[in-house]
C-alpha cells in the first residue's frame, strides 16, 4: 500500500492505495466523483478524461500513485453547484452537444485543455483535438458546435446562433 495525496478540484485528498489502483477508480470509488466515466477501459474512448496538472489524460491508463502530489480536475469542478454554467457546459446545453451523455464529461474536460491552448480553434482543429474521444451517438457535429460556442463565449464574443437551420 502507498500513501498518496492528490488535490482534486482544489480539495486535497489523502488515501492509502494499492499501486495497481487506477486513477479513474480513485476518483469514482474512493472520492465518489462519478461524473468521470469508464467506457472502453483501454485508453481508446476518452470517457474517463480528466486534467492532471492541467493536461488532459485518460484516467483509466494512469495509476493513482502517479497522481501523487499532483492536481486533478474532473467534470464536477467545471462549476460549483448552483453557480452559472461554465461556457463549455452552456455550449453543450445550447447546441444539444449531448445525446445519451456518456461521453460528455470526457469531451468537456478534453475541450477545456484544447481551448486553453487554442482559444480560437477552427472546426478542423477541434475535430483533431477531440480525436481521442468517441461519441457513439455520433453527435460529433453538435459537439464541435458546442466547443466553438464555448470558445467564442470565453473570448467575450457573441457565439453563433444555436437556432436550427432548415435547408
Amino acid at each position, binding site marked *: 500500500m*502507498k500513501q498518496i495525496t492528490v488535490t482534486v478540484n482544489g480539495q486535497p485528498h489523502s488515501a492509502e492505495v*494499492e*499501486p*495497481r489502483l*487506477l486513477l479513474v477508480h480513485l476518483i469514482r470509488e474512493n472520492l465518489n466523483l462519478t461524473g468521470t466515466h469508464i467506457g472502453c*477501459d*483501454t*485508453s*481508446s474512448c*476518452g470517457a474517463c*478524461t480528466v486534467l*492532471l496538472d492541467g*493536461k*488532459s*489524460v*485518460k484516467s483509466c*491508463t*494512469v*495509476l493513482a*500513485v*502517479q497522481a*501523487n502530489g499532483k492536481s486533478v480536475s474532473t467534470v464536477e469542478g467545471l462549476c460549483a453547484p448552483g453557480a452559472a454554467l461554465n461556457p463549455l457546459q452552456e455550449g453543450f446545453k445550447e447546441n444539444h452537444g449531448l445525446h445519451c451523455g456518456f461521453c460528455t464529461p470526457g469531451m468537456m474536460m*478534453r475541450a477545456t*485543455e*484544447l481551448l486553453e491552448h487554442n482559444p480560437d480553434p477552427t472546426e478542423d482543429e477541434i475535430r*483533431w*483535438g477531440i*480525436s*481521442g*474521444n468517441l461519441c457513439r451517438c455520433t453527435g460529433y457535429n453538435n459537439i464541435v458546435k458546442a466547443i466553438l460556442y464555448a470558445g467564442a463565449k470565453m473570448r467575450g464574443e457573441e457565439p453563433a446562433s444555436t437556432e436550427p437551420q432548415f435547408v
Partner: protein
Amino acid sequence: MIAADFNYEAPTSLDEAFTLLRKYGDEAKILSGGHSLIPMMKLRFASPECIIDINNIPGLSDITREGDIMKIGALVREAQVEHAAELLEHFPIFADVTKLIADPQVRNMGTVGGNLAHGDAANDHPAVMMALRASVVIAGADGTRVVPIDEFFFGFYSTAIQPDEILTEIQIPMPSPYTGSAYHKLERKVGDYATAGVAVQLTIDANGICTYAGIGLTNVNPLPMRAARSEEALVGKKITDETIAEAARYASDDCNPSADLRGDVEYKRAMVGVLTKRMIHKAAQRAVA
C-alpha cells in the same frame, strides 16, 4: 481491468533507479508515459513484480541542441514534441509523426523514449529515428553507452537495453543545409497501429544531387526496418520520377509485412510503395524550400 499486484517505486535519481534495477532484475519494468505498459499490465500480458516510475528523476524532460546533436530526453512527451520550435524547424518529420501517434490525451503522457524502448515495430518513432540515423543513450550503474538505432532493436519487445539499464536520451545528428524530412502512416482510424508507415530524410546539394537518404518503415517487418536498397537508389543521383519509382519498388519488395485485419501482404507492399514515393517527394520539397 485491474493489473496484477506489484511494488511501486518512484526513485528521484538515476543511481537510485539503477539500485532498484539491480535488486529486481528481469522482474522490474520502467514506467515513463505508461501508455504501452499499463494497458499490457491491465490485460495481464505483463505482470512485473516491480514498477520503477522514472517520472520524478530530474533532467530527462528536455529537448536541447548541443552543437551538431539534437538531444531528446527520455521523458519528453509526444505533446512536447508538437511544440518544440527548434526541433520542428530542423526536423519537420516530427510535426508529421506526432500528429499521427494515438490521440491528444495519450500524447500528453506517452514519451518518445518509451515509444522506442517498447521495442515494437508497429510504433512510429523507430522508423523516424532510422531515417534520421539517431542514436540511443543507454545508462546503467557501470556507465553510459551510445547505441546507433540500427543496433538497438533485437526482436519483438526486445532491445539493446539490458535489465539493469535505462534509456536516458535520444541523439539526432543535426542535418546539413538543404535537408528535408517527412513521415506518413496509413491508419484505419485515430489511435490504430499503422497499416504501413514510411519515414524519409533527404539532403539535396546545389546541383540537385541527393547526398543523404534515410528511409525507415513502420509495421511492415518483424523489426523496425531500414529500406537500405531504397536509400542506395537515391544517393548520388538526381531525385527524378524514375529514381523515386525505383526506391519505392525496393521498399515494397524488401519489406516483410504480415497479413492481418489491416490488409493482406500484397496490399501492404503496395501501400509501402505509394507512401515511399509520396514521402520522398515531400522530403525533397522540404529540402529545397
